[in-house]
């Protein structure tokens, strides 16, 4: 018995910033597109982005996309692909202006232009400084304003949404072409096949692989789990960003915009310690640099609080007026989750898992690429990805603040354009393979019939602890090896999860079990890739290989689910039109 089939030109999985931006291109081109989302679109995690979107508009001082590009390459610790980075930085101003035309309520300057604030790692004059004001923002609610604006534009364009539908597996035909997905309607528990000429993943991040995370519960790496089960590798999964300022204990994000507006970090002696670690950029150094400095202060006994396990973010000197106008959301969060009013007292903060630099390998047009024969980057026909779930790669080993929103706008659009182009060249649906839906059925049957299994929450906790303990800000050879062994055991347990609730109606126990199937692929990929990379680069900092090793490791990791196999491919050092930015020592 097969699942009922619904036919569309294209299916987009995910309705956060990238999915919504891509959907606009398809809707406006008159394509019949289905956008699937686990949650109502405005509940997607883009909503939580705070500080801004990076684009060299030069509204508040000199700036150029070349400088933005330099900062992004340097921020990536030279692992980012320079063609993709050039494309993103060059397109960014256009994308932001277009968003403003869509109605985005950006903050404004006296002359009516979009207000921009400084952000970590963004400088003028090819890194020389002074800091560039490049982050276009709507107070500290930029992601919220952006996500709602993009949703509203899709309402105007009559985009067809399937709200509270969870995609389960990718369907590829015998040639490897993507021809659809299986998906479950959460309200009824019914599974359908979405038969399409093209599939675009925009499923966001997977920060829920860590115990302590700024990410929403829905960030379970669904797109990554789905493609890895379908034989497509995951790229650079060892690179996880720890945001310097998560609220200690709660994990909730405090934007880097606080430091952009003039806030700074203090240790227990009241010392502004970033002056020691990054004499020029200080508190506005790259996130990996600041997170490591904080972790070092804490490790060396200069942390604050009874347990010395956090540092303080001071912003009271900015004054109530500025905090109320530029950082109102932060004040709300600090009061609610840290019991402090930042107008008077500093906020206790600690590095917290925030962003996945790796993901589904794509080129800068949003086409998914995977090794085939000699070609390390053969295009997988009909398959596209954008946003955090994709690895273009623009963030390399470390993402700059504001570049996640830039990424999802620019690549949301370019992947949408690529999909439209593909649809024009492929007018007919390819046939579904005879086994379409079988994998999904096996997974659902296994879960429904499991006996003597473990609860999803127990196994999920084991997964998160394994990642937290063994794959954190600082990485040690014994912990990484231990982590690989442990996560393989957890993977066995994931195959035996059991739910007591068998109802068909909005069964969130079943949804969480299916999400865990995706999280485990992400966690295994991360640990195996991290254990293998014998150098320190960006967010991957190894005690036994303290230096960056361009001779051996200036290359992207590819992890394959089958056999836990690793492969590598070269970094694109050639931009599209600009000059190559040659690797050099990275200091701030």
């Amino acid at each position, binding site marked *: 018995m097969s699942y009922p089939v619904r036919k569309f030109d294209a299916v987009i999985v995910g309705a956060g910033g990238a999915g919504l931006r891509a959907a606009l291109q398809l809707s406006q081109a008159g394509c019949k597109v289905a956008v699937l989302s686990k949650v109502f679109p*405005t509940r997607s995690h883009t909503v939580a982005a705070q500080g801004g979107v990076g684009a060299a508009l030069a509204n508040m001082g000199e700036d150029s996309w070349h400088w933005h590009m330099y900062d992004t390459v340097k921020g990536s610790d030279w692992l980012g692909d320079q063609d993709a980075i050039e494309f993103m930085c060059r397109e960014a101003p256009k994308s932001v202006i277009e968003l403003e*035309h869509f109605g985005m309520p*950006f903050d*404004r300057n006296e002359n009516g232009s979009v207000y921009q604030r400084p952000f970590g790692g963004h400088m003028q004059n090819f890194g020389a400084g002074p800091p560039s004001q490049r982050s276009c923002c709507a107070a500290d609610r930029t992601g919220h304003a952006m996500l*709602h604006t993009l949703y509203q534009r899709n309402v105007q364009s009559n985009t067809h949404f399937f709200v509270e539908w969870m995609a389960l597996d990718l369907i590829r035909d015998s040639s490897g072409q993507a021809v659809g997905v299986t998906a479950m309607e959460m309200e009824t528990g019914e599974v359908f096949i979405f038969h399409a000429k093209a599939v675009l993943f925009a499923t966001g991040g997977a920060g829920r692989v860590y115990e302590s995370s700024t990410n929403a519960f829905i960030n379970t790496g669904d797109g990554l789990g789905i493609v890895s089960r379908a034989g497509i590798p995951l790229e650079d999964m060892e690179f996880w960003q720890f945001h310097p300022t998560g609220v200690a204990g709660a994990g909730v994000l405090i934007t880097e915009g606080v430091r952009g507006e003039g806030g700074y970090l203090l240790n227990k002696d009241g010392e502004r310690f970033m002056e020691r670690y990054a004499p020029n950029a200080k508190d506005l150094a790259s996130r990996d640099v600041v997170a490591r400095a904080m972790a070092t202060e804490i490790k060396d006994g200069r942390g604050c609080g009874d347990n010395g396990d956090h540092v303080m973010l001071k912003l009271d000197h900015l004054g109530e007026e500025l905090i109320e106008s530029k950082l109102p959301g932060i004040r709300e969060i600090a009061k609610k989750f840290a019991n402090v009013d930042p107008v008077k007292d500093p906020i206790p903060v600690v590095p917290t898992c925030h962003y996945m630099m790796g993901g589904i390998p794509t080129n800068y047009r949003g086409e998914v690429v995977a090794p085939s024969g000699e070609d390390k980057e053969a295009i997988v026909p009909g398959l596209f990805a954008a946003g955090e779930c994709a690895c273009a790669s623009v963030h390399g080993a470390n993402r700059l603040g504001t570049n996640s929103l830039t990424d999802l706008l620019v690549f949301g659009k370019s992947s949408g354009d690529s999909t439209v182009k593909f649809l024009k060249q492929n007018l007919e649906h390819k046939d579904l393979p005879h086994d379409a839906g079988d994998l999904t059925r096996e997974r659902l049957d296994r879960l429904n019939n499991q006996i003597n299994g473990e609860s999803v929450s127990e196994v999920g906790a084991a997964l998160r602890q394994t990642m937290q303990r063994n794959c954190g800000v600082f990485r040690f050879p014994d912990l990484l090896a231990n982590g690989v062994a442990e996560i393989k055991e957890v993977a066995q347990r994931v195959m035996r999860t059991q739910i*007591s609730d068998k*109802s068909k109606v*909005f069964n969130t126990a079943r949804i969480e079990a299916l999400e865990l199937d995706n999280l485990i692929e992400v966690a295994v990929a991360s640990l195996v890739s991290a254990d293998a990379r014998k150098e320190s680069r960006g967010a991957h900092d190894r005690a036994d290989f303290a230096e960056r090793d361009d001779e051996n490791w200036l290359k992207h990791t590819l992890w394959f689910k089958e056999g836990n196999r690793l492969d590598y491919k070269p970094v694109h050092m050639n931009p599209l039109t600009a000059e190559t930015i040659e690797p050099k020592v990275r200091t701030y």
Partner: protein
Amino acid sequence: MLFRIYRYDPDKDAKPYMKEYDVELGSSDRMLLDALIRIKEMDDSLSIRRSCREGVCGSDAMNINGKNGLACLTSLATIKTPVELRPLPGMPVIRDLIVDMSQFFKQYHSVQPYLVNEDAAPDTERLQSPKEREQLDGLYECILCACCSTACPSFWWNPDKFVGPAGLLQAYRFLADSRDQSSSQRLDNLEDPYRLFRCHSIMNCVDVCPKGLNPTKAIGKIKDMLVKRMV
């Protein structure tokens, strides 16, 4: 800590019932949502919506001790026990604390919730002074959680005809935007005995909004615009 939670699964329950849970909280549990996640670990059949857990996504709105609010922003330290949790009032229940929000979103969609500007797009941003931009504060921050509309008796009685506070707040968000050119159509769309004028300013919406927004004030401003248009 004691909880009484509304339970209903149409797949197996003939009718809804209240179920009691006695939960041992962990040291890191601060908010009601943390407690609900503990309960879900004990009983995986409890269904709720949740995502960001910091009050920006709007998923976990529910009726908490008789008042609508977000579970993730409700502190356990100050809550009255036993904590009684019910689905948002006036909406069809899908299961447990999950309600069918179709009517709510239909009303939101009915107000043309997007910027209309027919002028050719300039190469740069459309200019807007800080003062003009300030008019959007207190409006654009809405998270569409539905706490307000489902606390409003007018919306309970006429969910198909009265736009409700959330939809009207967004209607005003675009009326207030200096870049928008569709004011007269927007006002036409609301000039009706039900869509706008069922609001009797009882301010339940203001009382429950977890983001501290004021839909009643926005509705008053729309009414002012309609009056001004008449004279």
